[in-house]
């Protein structure tokens, strides 16, 4: 009976229509559909489909980002319902992301954050020009598994080290993993500052994050 609703949910994600996704999520709540089923049998399948089409070159990044946005809208409506039932959506892990202080490069960090959340991570995107301490504080506040630090400038890349030190000072290391990225970041640099992983693109970042949480 819910099959048509689930199918419409899937399609709303494939189409990247946040308004449709919102309407369908609300409809599910109104009709008393199990929110976890709505996510797993409806919306998530749309995201999988988009991921596949992206993988074989039929869809492009804007499709992916629109799908992820639509997904976010739906989940925002369904999550409180899950909480009411005392359940939660299974997530792969919690990630705090940002571009470090003094640096306003936004696109790469945002793509990584989007891909992570589309892949099942809970992501807190702190934006750009983020103070060193703010990464560590947010990580503690939300119980992050991973902190992701983006730096596109050689002058701000040095601050990736400071983020690791700040996490250390709060006693959050080595439980909280750190991954880094951005134009000047190299494998050598990652080893030098003792970060746990890095990637040169967003798809790779998902693989690294999965590895870091043991998934």
């Amino acid at each position: 009976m819910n099959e048509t609703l689930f199918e419409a949910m899937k399609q709303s994600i494939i189409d990247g229509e946040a308004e449709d996704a919102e309407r369908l999520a609300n409809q599910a709540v109104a009709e008393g559909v199990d929110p976890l089923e709505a996510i797993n049998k409806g919306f998530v399948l749309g995201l999988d489909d988009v991921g596949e089409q992206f993988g074989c070159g039929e869809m492009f990044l804007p499709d992916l980002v629109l799908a992820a946005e639509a997904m976010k809208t739906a989940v925002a409506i369904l999550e409180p319902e899950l909480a009411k039932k005392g359940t939660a959506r299974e997530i792969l892990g919690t990630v705090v992301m940002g571009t470090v202080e003094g640096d306003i490069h936004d696109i790469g960090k945002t793509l990584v954050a989007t891909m992570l959340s589309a892949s099942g991570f809970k992501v807190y995107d702190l934006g750009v020009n983020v103070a060193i301490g703010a990464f560590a504080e947010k990580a503690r506040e939300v119980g992050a598994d991973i902190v992701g630090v983006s730096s596109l400038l050689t002058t701000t890349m040095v601050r990736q080290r400071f983020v690791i030190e700040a996490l250390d000072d709060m006693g959050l290391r080595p439980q909280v993993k750190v991954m880094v990225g951005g134009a000047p970041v190299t494998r050598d640099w990652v080893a030098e500052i003792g970060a746990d992983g890095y990637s040169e693109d967003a798809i790779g970042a998902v693989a690294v994050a999965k590895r870091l949480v043991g998934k």
Partner: protein
Amino acid sequence: MNGNIKSITDPRLSLDILSQDDVQRLHTATLEIIEKTGVRFPSKSALEIWEAHGATVDHDSMIVKAPGHLIEEALKKAPPAYDLAARSPEQDLPLDGNHVFVGTDGCGVEVMDLYTGQRRRSRLQDVGEIARVADYLPEVGFHWVAVSAQDYPPESRGLHELLAIWQNSTKHVQTESVYSIAEAKAAVEMATAVAGSREALRKRPVLSIMQCTAPPLGQDGGSIDAALIAAEAGLPTGFMTMASCASTGPVTLAGNLAVGNAEVISALALIQLAYPGAPVFYAAAQTAMDLRTGAYTGGGPEDFLFGAATNVLADFYNVPLSMGSFATGAKEPNWQAGIDNSMSTFMASIAMSDMLLGVGLLHGSRIWSYEQMLMDCEIFDMVRQVMAGIVVDEASLALDVIGKVGPGGNFLAQKHTRRHMRQLWLPKYMDRRPYNVWEEQGDGARDWANAEARRILETHQPEPLDAGLAAELKRMIKSVETAVPA
């Protein structure tokens, strides 16, 4: 003549890329964006200047909305032409609309080592060595700081880089790596020392400053503050938009041009409001995001179109243009690099962009390659020859020689041939040898460019910087370092 520096001048080719109507529509759209949507200026001094001139300023969002007439009036005060001065005056570069000069690309983060071929992190020594090679090459008119001195402290790095270039070259220096108040002040002080006095610097600015805007529709606070300090001292100051189709700008080219234009002209207007008549330039390196990876492509038809179209805009505002050309996305000097850099340079040149940035970097302005640098110079030299066009006059029609040789025969033994043969272009790195020679030697452009770069580096002795002056500049850098708490 600009010393031995090669430039494109008196072009015989032209291109109609935007009609008068198109330009007018882009301009009107831009003013509408600045007035209705606004541009973000996260700098206290900038917001105060805007407010004092009657723009609407929201201090929380730091968004400025300025009426069209304010922008238009301000831009009218910008000088249409001026010189970029060099340490040796015969290398001064007139930005007068009739010259195209090439610089090195800037702010690379890695270097393909000239001797080992290995990729490694960039350091101060590289900055000086690249400057020395650039000093020698006639195709290079001025310097950007080609790579970053990552072995020096971040707060004074930009200054060490300037000194390294001045120590290795007499040509004009333009920096894109000074974007804080402290560094800008010190850079102005250093340039003053090189020029001799504040007045001398104003007359002959040996340093110019390029800042990036922050697309979409924003500025970077540190960059704006640094530009204001430079402009106050009379240093030519430019703003570069990098708005990318589909990520930091609309996916459509016209929309992307309008967004970038709003960023650049609002910044130039700010400088004119603060320091009327200060030399400024338009700068752009727009592109399209790669749909698959999100990468900044640094090549492709969209880039090439932007390269030519932007100059029409800069001409409309009557200010010089610095245009991103070269800067391929290729990972090594290869087919892709050749196409990207030839097409972008041709399109920016045919529109007579005043400055082209720049030679030498690969992988979207990240990896320095001396081989690429020399091959880029060859690309420019070729484009330069193309831009000279075809001269039709008595000597070039050569009717008498044609008559003499007649049907059959050949022109090899004609004096006319010998007289004019050096007008034909000769490559340094293109392989025109017989097949078997190529097969036996097994070498090519990259090897020859590598050998030439080594030869220049090992033999070229640029005119040194006066030892006393160098010591003074070092002291100035030190003062910035000691002012910063560790």
